[in-house]
């Protein structure tokens, strides 16, 4: 039981940190603000949720201490991180940050003109 739970917890924490690393590589290499935000607000959120789930399982199984603040933190990050990404992207669009040069269609611009 203890060994299996350590296996699962180690897998969750390692998966979360690998997802964080992939997200930051995406932020470093993608071409413009909007694609970077796509990488930041999805992969980083899932990675951190996975890490916090592993930590919650560790404390509830090995230390026998069920900490509801970690659950609250999971729900809070899940709710607010995409909202923060949306607000930053919206501010970037309305301050006329340039899109990637190979962008095909910009529906919001057509809507404002028409």
């Amino acid at each position, binding site marked *: 039981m203890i060994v299996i739970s350590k296996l699962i917890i180690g897998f969750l*924490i*390692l998966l979360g940190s690998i997802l*964080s*690393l992939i997200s930051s590589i995406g932020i470093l290499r993608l071409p413009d603000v909007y694609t970077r935000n796509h990488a930041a607000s999805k992969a980083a959120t899932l990675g*951190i949720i996975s890490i916090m789930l592993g930590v919650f399982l560790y404390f509830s199984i090995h230390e026998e201490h069920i900490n509801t603040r970690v659950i609250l933190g999971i729900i*809070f*990050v899940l709710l607010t991180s995409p909202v923060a990404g949306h607000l*930053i992207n919206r501010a*970037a669009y309305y301050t006329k940050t340039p899109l990637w040069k190979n962008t095909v269609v910009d529906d919001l611009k057509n809507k404002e003109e028409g």
Partner: protein
Amino acid sequence: MFETVLVISLGLIAISSFLLIIRLIKGPSIPDRAISLDAIGINLIGITAIISVVLKTNAFLDVILLIGILAFIGTVAIAKFLEKGEIIENDRDK
């Protein structure tokens, strides 16, 4: 074995934060920097969580929620300042 996995995860998150700091320094626009600061805050939550497992203490678990709330409030304030020019609007001035 379990401690090795934890140390490897800490190293991966540290590399991730380093790459985000590179984007924070050379990012061409202000929203780039805001995005990378937000992601650094999210990474700090993970570092705090793993450190509390390594040290086997539950004293730092409040800090997780606190960093999450502060990162969200900071990002919303930066976004509103970029879009409207002021963070707290006063309607009676108009």
